[in-house]
């Protein structure tokens, strides 16, 4: 997953670069988007992390331009602008996700991964959570080294939660990753997959947050 960070604040950019590299993700950094072409973005990057408050050219203007030119590269917008007014505008202009500064670096990383995955640009990996391992390439789940049988969709749900452990995932977010925007899932589909996961793995891994969604709490 190649990520482009467009951020004029060196302190923030340095922290993001350091955190992404620590997690094995390559990140390019630009302090402005003034000379950035659509071809560069489309060809070289899987996710763009765009700050809205850039000094030379507004991030919203850049976002609007690349969307009008037909770019489909996932763009995560983050801004220090007043959230209630900027969020709606950014999402209306084609941003795929939105974060307000200050943000949590893990949260930013998880969201970038989710966006890249939606584009099919995440390499196979082995995820570990407590005594579970999940191989994204071979779709294998092991508990204490012992293979666990899961249906493909239940596997996907477990993968989403394991990749984003410590982060609350709503039903809508899970459905969106499973089916995309276009397909409507049955109203209880996610509950069925969660129930399968609990049956096979035990109830202690996935926590229900009533009325909101699910999460796998941080092991710490």
């Amino acid at each position, binding site marked *: 997953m190649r990520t482009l960070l467009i951020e004029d604040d060196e302190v923030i950019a340095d922290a993001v670069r350091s955190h992404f590299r620590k997690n094995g993700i390559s990140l390019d950094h630009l302090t402005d988007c003034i000379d950035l072409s659509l071809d560069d973005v489309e060809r070289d990057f899987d996710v763009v992390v765009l700050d809205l408050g850039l000094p030379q050219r507004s991030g919203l203007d850049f976002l609007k331009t690349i969307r009008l030119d037909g770019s489909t590269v996932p763009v995560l917008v983050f801004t220090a602008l007043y959230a209630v007014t900027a969020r709606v505008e950014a999402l209306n202009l084609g941003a795929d996700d939105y974060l307000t500064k200050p943000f949590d670096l893990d949260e930013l990383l998880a969201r970038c991964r989710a966006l890249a995955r939606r584009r099919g640009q995440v390499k196979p990996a082995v995820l570990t959570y407590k005594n579970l391992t999940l191989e994204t390439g071979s779709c294998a789940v092991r508990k204490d080294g012992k293979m666990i049988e899961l249906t493909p969709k239940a596997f996907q749900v477990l993968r989403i939660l394991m990749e984003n452990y410590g982060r609350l995932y709503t039903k809508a977010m899970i459905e969106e990753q499973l089916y995309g925007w276009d397909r409507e899932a049955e109203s209880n589909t996610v509950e069925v997959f969660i129930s399968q996961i609990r049956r096979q793995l035990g109830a202690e891994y996935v926590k229900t947050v009533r*009325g909101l969604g699910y999460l796998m709490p941080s092991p710490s």
Partner: protein
Amino acid sequence: MSQPIFQKTFRRVLVAIVLSTALLFVAVTLHVSSEFKDELRSRTSHTAQIVLSLAAAMPLDTIASDFAEQPIFVNDELDYIIAIFQGDTPIYVSPSDLAIPHPSSETSQLHRGAHTYYLMHESDPSTALHVTVGLSKSEAFFSSIEIVLVTVTIFLVATLLMLGLTRHAIRQGLRPIDQLADAVSQRAPNRLGHLNPDQSPTELQPIVLATNALLSRLKDALESERAFAANAAHELRTPLAGILAQSKTLKLEDMDSDAQKTVALIQSSAERSTRQVQQLLDHAFAHSQASVVPFTEFNLADMLRRLMTDAFPSALKLDVEVELKGLDVFEVCLPETLLEIILRNLIDNAIKYCGTGGHVRVTLEAQNPGFQIKVEDSGPGLSRQDFEHAISRFERLGDDAKIYGHGLGLAITRDLCEHLNLSLIHGRSEQLGGLCLSVLSV
């Protein structure tokens, strides 16, 4: 408040018409009375001359029988009276019981009951015949009154018609003012574009142009406040974001406990400042932009899910269990950003003040009409008095040094609830035992 132009103008026209009608009535009455007095004199004189001619042409012994038919009685009164004298001797008097004076007396009036007769005398020296004719003045009086009434009635009808036309004309003339007032008053608060001067008559254009100038100044003022809030947010949050992001990249496991404690203090200070900046920005936004935030339709349940998901990391950090209950879909039409500030403050406060290991429950229920959102927690609660104190600005809710906040959130919430005509109700949660704040649509 001064009277409307329409009422003032119409009242003046009405007074002018009433006065002119009264003057007309008096003038017509005087004129008609004078005319009838002359007419009466003329008629009496002519009648006397005719009677004298007839009497002179007739044999004296036939006069009494030929004039025997009595004059017409009206309500026991006579319209006219006639007396014929041969020298000093009356040869005919009608009615016979009336003592009509001899013409030589030159009496001009005769009273009989309530009647007054105007008398006219004619004499023929060649036959020594004298005629006296009297016509009732009341006949002339009532006739004149009748004519006056007919005249005034016609005038009044014409006047009322004119009044109606005047009223209609004033209304038509003032309609552009009403239209201009409607165009201004029915505008949504967020529509600050200019009024079209071409749609108003020339007389109103100075008002339209002045209103447009005011709208421009208002728009500029709001724009600069918005720009200030956005710039202030950027300038305040960016360094905080830098501090927090850099502190998160530190390898805590390589540090000794003192250094770890220092990093934790830096992080909590930065987080506290972040919250304060957010509340100050909310405060600035609520007071400068609240009236121009547009009403939009949205699912209230979706908003609650998003806000609780946003607040979840804080809850997780404090080991607070959160849950959302109630409706999955509830469409409302409200200023979305303002309601978001209200609910975010309530949810954040509940998580912050319920204490580690606590429980926060948000419930969305339909009311008839409207909705109720309850934010309950398992914290220590808040007395009514403390709540009133807390919704005053810059009052911190708790004394616990671990809990940071300065109470601006509740004051903003209260202000925005008032602005949106929502009720903010304080209570105690029956199930969780702590504070229960409800937002009710009225």
